[in-house]
């Protein structure tokens, strides 16, 4: 055997590699170590450490920022699965702090109050992978060109209402399907319409696939919601307020994990959906005064 080659860390392939490992799983929002343990026990593939779940951010109003590092570290210390945390859109110093904490994925999130109304974080400058939200294909491709290793549909966080997540998934997959039918001249117009780099649009025309995994977030509250997102083409689900704002979080968390794996099997979905207690109450879109999904540019 010859001497082994050196290690290369922080490459795009290594970042996307972790996103691949999270596929077919559920990433759960948690606000303390007890919730993190419940999430890991239920089979979560990762937890999102944050001080307030989106439903509470929505209720409290004010400026929502990165969580206290102490709280993130307490969650890192108590579980063995990957820990994600959120930085404000454009707040690259919060991202630097999260990288220094050894957070496994940074979510540049519209759920927090944006720090920059023009620019997102230059995610290429980090070794830690980033996940970003998108409502449509153009937004997804702009985030990918900035270095995001994973895209999630934004949905409308903290509402317990899946309607926006469905809209965003249909937008993204619908446009991908149309682009695969476009001829080479039409791709220039697609790039212009989407506000997205032409080479990325051309790549999609060829492969029919987004360059990074696409997960669903924003409004998932039941096992059936999770399976709906998966059948629409999402590769994993983020569940925020939907678990810990429900009556009985642990069985609901387990049921959503099983539903995400067996998303095509209605018999299993029927079985796991039984006796879960009340889901989070939820809000209709006409009752909210601020749409987080509109944050991001």
């Amino acid at each position, binding site marked *: 055997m010859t001497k082994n080659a050196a290690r290369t860390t922080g490459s795009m392939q290594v970042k996307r590699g972790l996103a*691949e490992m999270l596929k077919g799983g559920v990433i759960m929002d948690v606000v303390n170590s007890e919730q993190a343990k419940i999430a890991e026990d239920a089979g979560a593939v990762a937890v999102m450490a944050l001080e307030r779940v989106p439903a509470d951010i929505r209720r409290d109003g004010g400026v929502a920022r990165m969580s206290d590092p102490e709280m993130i570290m307490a969650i890192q210390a108590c579980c063995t699965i990957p820990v994600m945390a959120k930085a404000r859109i454009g707040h690259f110093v919060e991202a630097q702090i999260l990288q220094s904490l050894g957070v496994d994925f940074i979510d540049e999130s519209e759920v927090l109050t944006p720090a920059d109304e023009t620019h997102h974080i230059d995610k290429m400058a980090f070794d830690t992978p980033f996940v970003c939200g998108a409502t449509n294909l153009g937004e997804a491709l702009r985030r990918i060109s900035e270095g995001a290793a994973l895209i999630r549909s934004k949905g409308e966080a903290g509402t317990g209402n899946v309607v926006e997540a469905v809209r965003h998934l249909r937008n993204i997959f619908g446009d991908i399907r149309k682009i695969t039918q476009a001829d080479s001249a039409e791709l220039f117009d697609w790039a212009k319409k989407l506000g997205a780099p032409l080479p990325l649009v051309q790549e999609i025309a060829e492969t029919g696939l987004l360059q990074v995994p696409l997960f669903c977030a924003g409004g998932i509250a039941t096992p059936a919601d999770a399976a709906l997102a998966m059948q629409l083409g999402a590769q994993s689900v983020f569940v925020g307020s939907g678990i810990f704002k429900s009556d009985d979080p642990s069985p609901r968390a387990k049921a959503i994990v099983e539903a995400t794996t067996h998303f095509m099997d209605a018999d299993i979905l029927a079985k796991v959906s039984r006796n879960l207690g009340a889901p989070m109450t939820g809000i209709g879109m006409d009752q909210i005064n601020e749409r987080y999904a509109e944050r991001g540019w």
Partner: protein
Amino acid sequence: MKVGILALQGAFAVHEEMLQSLGANTVQVRTPQDLNAVDALVMPGGESTTMSHLLSTSQLFDPIAERIEDAMPVFGTCAGMILLAKSIADGRPDQRSYGAIDIDIQRNAYGRQVESFETDLDVDGLQTPFHAMFIRAPQVIRVGLDVEVLSTHEDKVVLARQGSVMVASFHPELTSDNRIHSLFLQEV
């Protein structure tokens, strides 16, 4: 001849593409019925705690143990390797493994995601180095005498075989190089 890919969670889709690129007939395994239809099984990377949990809830743990006992060829990468190991040094108390290969494992031994890396490996039986991805990878901390070591990195065993069981701590499915999968299919 059908090769199953355990599809409860993780990087099963890329494994399937790679096996298909080698002409294998593949099927995703999520239920005991799916398992009955396969002659070999790939256990992919992902979160080993999640997979261990889903193996139980999906009534797959024991049927897979029986098939491994009957010498069904299995190939475990990363989380799949953890599931096939004899013991897990820092697993959750309720985490189960098959003990199908005589190695002990430490999870996330290289650290968090910022320590994940890619590198070139020399592999027994391959003429040129294999480019490997290590994602929050486990480390082999003990190797039994009957285990055949196929590759090491920084003095740690990263690819090994015992009987019909092959394990890798890295992710051969994340590159476009299908030579490791080809080594596995030669056993099938």
